[in-house]
């Protein structure tokens, strides 16, 4: 028997995501996947899933979801007022929902993206080994698009959903991601010093013209950049591109695999989840960081997730 849930209200932008479509960047396939992989993994761990089980990523305005079958779920990431039927539900813990229950997202308190994990994971067809939705190319997820009212999604039940790295559900909360309100300082490995100087000790705002592909960073006078035309090369999530004119762009999960702009800095892996929680209007600052500090931060994060 498989479970199912249906989307009563889709929220602003809710998609199916896992840890991404790795292995095909040489063929031009964007990785995509959860913008805040920490909270995605935490949600999965809370309900006993492997880290790569698919969750729903809700953005800024959360959805309403009806559980058609008895379902164990957890919500992590951006903090919302949550109710199951009429009762308040806590973030960051495992909750049992009876068939027919409705999970409602209310007011958003902080952060941009929530992750809804169901026991076994959300079941959509894998495309190139991943269930992640990449809307621009219409790949993965449910028909390659954001969820709509009336969509019905099956959930994986039984042993199939466990997968590698599955653990017993955690009734006690693991450490949730700390989401600073209003903006964040993120640590970066700096690019060339002349390029990094355009980003260092400046406060930028996340432009409304930002999405899962990248954040445009506005509001700071960064001066003009005199770099010749570069030959396109591979890029990675967390890179802050500096176009010759216009706003710097922080590349996020859905970014194209290659780019030709100068690179001012790259956000460290451990701070990508916090970057994924920024919303338009939030500020961002970049602090230079060493490999040693970056690795230390990543190990601490793994320890907080209980991966020893």
């Amino acid at each position: 028997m498989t479970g199912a849930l249906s989307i009563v209200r889709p929220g602003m932008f809710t998609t199916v995501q896992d840890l991404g479509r790795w292995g095909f960047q040489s063929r031009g396939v964007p990785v995509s996947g959860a913008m805040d992989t920490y909270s995605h993994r935490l949600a999965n761990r809370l309900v006993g899933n492997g880290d790569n089980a698919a969750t729903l990523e809700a953005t800024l305005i959360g959805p309403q979801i009806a559980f058609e079958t008895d379902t164990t779920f957890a919500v992590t990431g951006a903090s919302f007022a949550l109710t199951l039927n009429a009762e308040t539900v806590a973030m960051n813990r495992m909750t049992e929902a009876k068939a027919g229950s409705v999970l409602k997202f209310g007011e958003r308190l902080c952060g941009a993206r929530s992750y809804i994990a169901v026991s076994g994971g959300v079941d959509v067809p894998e495309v190139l080994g991943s269930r992640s939705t990449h809307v621009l190319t219409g790949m993965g997820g449910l028909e390659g698009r954001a969820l709509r009212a009336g969509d019905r999604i099956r959930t994986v039940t039984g042993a199939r959903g466990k997968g590698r790295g599955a653990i017993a559900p955690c009734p006690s909360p693991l450490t949730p991601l700390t989401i600073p309100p209003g903006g964040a300082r993120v640590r970066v490995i700096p690019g060339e010093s002349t390029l990094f100087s355009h980003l260092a000790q400046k406060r930028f705002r996340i432009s409304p013209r930002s999405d899962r592909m990248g954040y445009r960073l506005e509001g700071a006078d960064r001066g003009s950049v005199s770099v010749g035309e570069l030959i396109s090369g591979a890029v990675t999530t967390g890179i802050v591109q500096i176009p010759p004119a216009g706003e710097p762009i922080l590349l996020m999960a859905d970014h194209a695999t290659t780019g030709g702009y100068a690179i001012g800095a790259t956000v460290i892996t451990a701070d990508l989840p916090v970057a994924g929680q920024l919303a338009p209007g939030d500020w961002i600052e970049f602090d230079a960081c060493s490999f040693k500090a970056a690795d230390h931060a990543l190990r601490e994060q793994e320890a907080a997730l209980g991966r020893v």
Partner: protein
Amino acid sequence: MGCLSWLGDSCLSISFGEKIDPLVNAQCVAIATSLEQRGRRGIRDVVATYNAVTVHFDPLQIDREDLSTELAVLAAMDAPGTGADVEPVLIPVEYGGHAGPDLAAVAEFGHCSERDVIHLHSMKVYRVYMLGFLPGFAYMGSVDARIAMPRLDTPRIRVASGSVGIAGAQTGVYPCETPGGWRIIGRTTSQLFDPRRADAFLLKAGDWVKFVAD
């Protein structure tokens, strides 16, 4: 010798000069292939581009010093040939008309007839330097200088799937409908990318391609 540069804590690139050259690109493809074949745990993606190889890795599983040494050793090996002697992948093209709305503009740019443009575009065998932009999108070159028209100032909102375009010395095929700024001279029925196919991608970096007028 290549130039190593870190893109953050989980990505390393080695690049070879700032020019587009089939031999340089062949070396990049060879390095990427060697790395992929070793299948080391913690390597997530290896991407060969025009003049560089970029390795995406898990910093908890890969030692940076080991990886940079490995890349430097591979870069020091003799560069292979370009493989230009292998059979090219043939891509049929319907040039002009609705399929190629910019054919006339390219002819004007080249001070030649539309037939000349078709001839100049379809007589060469192009190298696939890299894939990027979209799944299955191959950057190929080099286009004959006479028809190497720069891209549109303002990209089109919609370019049809299979459209064959020119952007300066580059030529390529749009694998799906998308906004785009290349000069569209024709369209192919070849599927550059189909995730349902056993091999989802028609092309990879290092391949050679010849367009055939339908």
